[in-house]
C-alpha cells in the first residue's frame, strides 16, 4: 500500500526528521488559507499515487495566496494517469542549495534492508541506477544491530563533504530506518533530500510503501488507505478478499492461484485475445468468492466473454461450480462463460454444471481458444 506524500511527510516529521512546514488541503479556499499562514511563495502539489506529477501539471509554484488559490482550482479535480486529484499539499517554496537522494528498500538479493544514497537527487533514482551507477552508494543493514552511527555517517559523507551537514544527514538516515520498522514499510524514500541556503538538511518529498502483509498488525497504518485513489472494481475486490487488477482487454479471467492466473492471461494473448483482468480467487473453497468475482467482472463494460480456469488442489472444483450456478442466477448477465475445471472433485463439478446447462472442459488451451473466439464474435 502506498502512502500519500503528505502522510509520509507527517510520519517523517513525527520521527524527528526535518520537514518543511506545509499542510494538506482539499479546496482552493483551504489552500489560500494555508498559503496566507505560510506567508511566502508556496508550491501546490497534487496528492495522487503516481509518478510524473510535475510533468502532468500537478505541481505548481505560486507567489502569493491569491495565486495559490487559483492554481489549486486547476489542480484539484484534474486527472493524472486516470486518477482524480482530491487533495493537494501546500508547502513553502524551498530555498534549495542542493538535492540528494536517500532511501531504504528491502533488497531481494541480499535479503536485507539496503540504504541507498546518491548526490544525484530530485530525479528518478532508477535512472541514476541505470545510467550513472557510480553515483549510488549502498549499505546492507544487519537487522540484528540496525543502522549503526558510523555506517550512517559513512554514507552521509558521500553526500556532504562538510561534517556538520553530514552529521545531520546521518541522523536523518538512522531515523528513516526507524520509520521503516515502525510503519512496516518495504520502501522509505526521501527524494529530494535538500540542503537549504542556511545550511539545513531537510526532507522535501517523501515516499513510503507499506508491505501489505503488515497491515493486519498495524491498524493505524491501514487506516491511512485512501480508497478514493483505487479503481472501484479493485476496492470491491480487496473488500471481498480477492486479488484483482483491471486490464484493457475483453476476455475476463477468473482463476485460482496467482501464477496460473498470469499464465491464463498470457495464453489469452497467445491465442490472439486480450485479457480484461488479473483475478485470483485464492485457495479457498467458498462459493461466495465466485459470486463476488463474477459481480466485479461483469461490471466492466469492456468484457465480452468470461473464462474460468480452475486447477483444484485445496480449491474444490464442485465449490467453484456451485458458485458459478448461484452467481448466474443472482446476477442476470448475458455474457458467454467458458469453464475449465480439473483436479479435486472434478467429476462432481461437471455433474453440477451439466445439470444447470453449462458446458465445461478439462483442457486449458481449448478453453482459452473458445473464450477468445467468443469475445471476437461479440466485438
Amino acid at each position, binding site marked *: 500500500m502506498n502512502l500519500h506524500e503528505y502522510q509520509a511527510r507527517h510520519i517523517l516529521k513525527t520521527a524527528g526528521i526535518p520537514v518543511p512546514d506545509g499542510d494538506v488541503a482539499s479546496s482552493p479556499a483551504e489552500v489560500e488559507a494555508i498559503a496566507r499562514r505560510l506567508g511566502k511563495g508556496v508550491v501546490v502539489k497534487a496528492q495522487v499515487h503516481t509518478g510524473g506529477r510535475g510533468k502532468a501539471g500537478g505541481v505548481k509554484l505560486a507567489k502569493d495566496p491569491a495565486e495559490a488559490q487559483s492554481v489549486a482550482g486547476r489542480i484539484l479535480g484534474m486527472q493524472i494517469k486516470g486518477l482524480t486529484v482530491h487533495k493537494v499539499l501546500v508547502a513553502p517554496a524551498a530555498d534549495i542549495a542542493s538535492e540528494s537522494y536517500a532511501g531504504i528498500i528491502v533488497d531481494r538479493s541480499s*535479503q536485507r534492508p539496503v540504504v541507498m544514497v546518491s548526490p544525484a537527487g530530485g530525479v528518478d533514482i532508477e535512472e541514476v541506477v541505470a545510467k550513472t551507477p557510480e553515483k549510488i552508494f549502498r549499505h546492507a543493514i544487519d537487522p*540484528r544491530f540496525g543502522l549503526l552511527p558510523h555506517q550512517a555517517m559513512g554514507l552521509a559523507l558521500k553526500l556532504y563533504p562538510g561534517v556538520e551537514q553530514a552529521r545531520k544527514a546521518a541522523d536523518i538516515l538512522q531515523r528513516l530506518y526507524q520509520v521503516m520498522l515502525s510503519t512496516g514499510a518495504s520502501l522509505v524514500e526521501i527524494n529530494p533530500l535538500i540542503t537549504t541556503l542556511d545550511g539545513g538538511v531537510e526532507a522535501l518529498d517523501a515516499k513510503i510503501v507499506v508491505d501489505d502483509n*503488515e497491515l*493486519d498488525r498495524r491498524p493505524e497504518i491501514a487506516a491511512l488507505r485512501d480508497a478514493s485513489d483505487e479503481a472501484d472494481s479493485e476496492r470491491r475486490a480487496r473488500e471481498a478478499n480477492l486479488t484483482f487488477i483491471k486490464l484493457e482487454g475483453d476476455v475476463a479471467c477468473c482463476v485460482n492461484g*496467482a*501464477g496460473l492466473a*498470469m499464465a491464463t492471461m498470457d495464453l489469452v494473448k497467445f491465442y490472439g485475445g486480450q485479457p480484461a483482468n*488479473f483475478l485470483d480467487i485464492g*485457495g479457498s473453497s467458498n462459493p461466495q468468492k465466485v459470486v463476488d468475482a463474477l459481480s466485479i467482472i461483469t461490471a466492466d463494460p469492456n468484457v465480452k466473454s468470461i473464462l474460468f480456469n480452475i486447477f483444484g*488442489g485445496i480449491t474444490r472444483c464442485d465449490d467453484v461450480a456451485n458458485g458459478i450456478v448461484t452467481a448466474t442466477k443472482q446476477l442476470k448477465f448475458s455474457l458467454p462463460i467458458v469453464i475449465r475445471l480439473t483436479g479435486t472433485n472434478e467429476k462432481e463439478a461437471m455433474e453440477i454444471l451439466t445439470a444447470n446447462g453449462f458446458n465445461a472442459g478439462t483442457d486449458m488451451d481449448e478453453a482459452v481458444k473458445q473464450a477468445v473466439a467468443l469475445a471476437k464474435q461479440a466485438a
Partner: protein
Amino acid sequence: MSIFVTRDTRLVVQGITGRDGSFHAKQMMEYGTRVAAGVTPGKGGQRFEGKVPIYDTVADAVRETGANTSVIYVPARFAPDAIFEAADAGLKLIVCITEGVPVLDMTRVLPFVREKGARLIGPNCPGAISPGRAKVGIIPGSICKQGSVGVVSRSGTLTYEIIHHLTHADMGQSTCVGIGGDPLIGTNFIDCLAAFEEDSGTRAVVIIGEIGGTDEQDAATFVKEKMKKPVVGFIAGQTAPPGRRMGHAGAIISGSSGTAAEKMAAFEAAGISVMKRPADVVPLLKKRL
C-alpha cells in the same frame, strides 16, 4: 532418488490442530509420509487422529520422535516465530506454507536459519513432493507420478498444471518443489537446480518462474555455467502491467526490471528451452531427453 523430501523424512507438523494443518496432515499421512509428531502449544499429550503424538514445543517433538523435517501451517502472525522455533530445535529442513509473512520479519528469520545450518523452503509456498515417497506441504499427490523429471517453481496451481501435463505424458517426477511467491524466501532456484544436478534420480529439470526480481536470471547463469542436465523453462506474466503486484508479493515489475521478456531472453541465452505455454513442457522435454 529425490531431493529434500525422501523416504527418510520424519515430519513434525507445526499447527497440526488448526484448520489447514489438520486437513493437510491427514492428506500427507494418506500419501504415506511419515508424520512423526504434531505441535500445538497447550495440546501436548493429545494424539492427532488417534495416532500422531502432539507436543507443546518443537524441541519436545524432536527429542521424543527424532523428527528431522518441519512443515508450518500456523497463521501469518505466528509464522516467523514458528520458523525460529524449528531452527532452534535443530531441524535441518523447514517448510513454511503460510502466506502473508511480513518481509521485514523475513530479514531477521533468514540469517538465523542459515546460522543454524537449516534450510527453509518458503514461506508462501506449496511445499515439496517426491512422488511415491513422501510429500511435505499441499501439492496434490494424485496429479504426480514417480519418475525422473525435477520440477521447481515460484507458483502453486501453475505448477500443478505443468505436473499434470507431465504425468499425462507418462513423464514422472523425482521431486517437485514450490519455492514460494514472496520476495524474500529461504530456498531459491539455484539451491534446487544444484540439488537436482547432484541427484542421480533426476534426468531433466523444469523451472517455472514469473515476473519480479532477478532470481530467474541468476538461475539462468547457473544453468549455463554449472549444469549438464537439460532444463526447460516457463515464465508467467508476459501480459502483466508494470508496477502492479500480481497476487504474489514478489510478482511485480519495478520500472523496466523483472519483466517476463527479460527473463525468457536470459533462459534462451543459457540454453534453457523456453515454453510459450504450459502445454509445451512435454514436447520440449522430449526433444531434450
